[in-house]
């Protein structure tokens, strides 16, 4: 791990963050597909399914560690604090 003098993240926290990255990527990419294929009902179902998994993963992250966005604070009872995890550009996971 690079020394950035930033708050450390456990292997478990990095793992959950990685799951959020993966689910979010699926949602972002599927949204672009739906932008040009809005009538694809199967794709709409997949999108809704993974969007819910993403929401749940962010909820779990907010409850266990900290809120990734301000919206997560009110919804999941987390606190808003910039020092609870490294800044996005600092890395912090292997």
């Amino acid at each position, binding site marked *: *791990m*690079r*020394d*950035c003098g930033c708050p450390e993240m456990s292997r478990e926290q990095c793992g959950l*963050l*990685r799951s*959020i*990255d993966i689910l*979010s*990527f699926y949602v*972002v*990419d599927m*949204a*672009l*597909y739906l*932008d*040009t*294929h*809005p009538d694809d009902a199967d794709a709409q179902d997949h999108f809704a399914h993974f969007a819910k998994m993403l929401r749940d993963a962010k909820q779990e992250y907010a409850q266990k560690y900290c809120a*990734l*966005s*301000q*919206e997560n604070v009110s919804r999941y009872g987390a606190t808003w604090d*910039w020092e609870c*995890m490294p*800044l*996005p*550009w*600092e*890395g*912090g*996971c*292997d």
Partner: protein
Amino acid sequence: MWSYERRLQYPVNIKKPDARAAMAIISQYGGPDGEISASLRYLSQRYGMNERRVAGLLTDIGTEELGHFEMIGAIVHQLTCNLSMEEIEKSGFAPYYVDHTITLWPQAAGGIPNNACEYQAKGDPITDLMEDMAAEQKARSTYDNILRLIDDPDIIEPIRFLRQREVNHFQRFGEALRMVQDSLDPKNFYQYNPAFDCCKD
């Protein structure tokens, strides 16, 4: 409206400082085919886009490009934040360092500042979408060039991800162009500015 999420779209965890790599990769931060130019191009073109779904696509891709802008910032930051003075002097990073220390400034690899003259919002949906498809290819070429210059797997991995997104966006813009062409007045044989003509009627 946008909301911020404090994570990168794809993780960047670089262990070894490398000022030379940083000076090449910074081109995708502020260079002519870089991520912020892409974002500003697409988000600005929305207002002249007559096809609502394509205006939506420009919003979604323009938003994703902001995330890529942040990823490039992270790569350059992690490559430069632990440099010693000796490395700064030896690597050719000194001219950048003297103006910006080790923070990020949107410039091309050759030092040229980010410039809106490097992209267009013409207000003609066909013209703009053709520019967008070309822009994705130019960014893809830039990533190919970057990949030829670096050998650290920690850098290669996120750069490959970004390169692949250019390919994907090119495909989506191609589909968007087809959507606009399919909705054109069949008498508009030469595809002259369908957005402007529609508003004047």
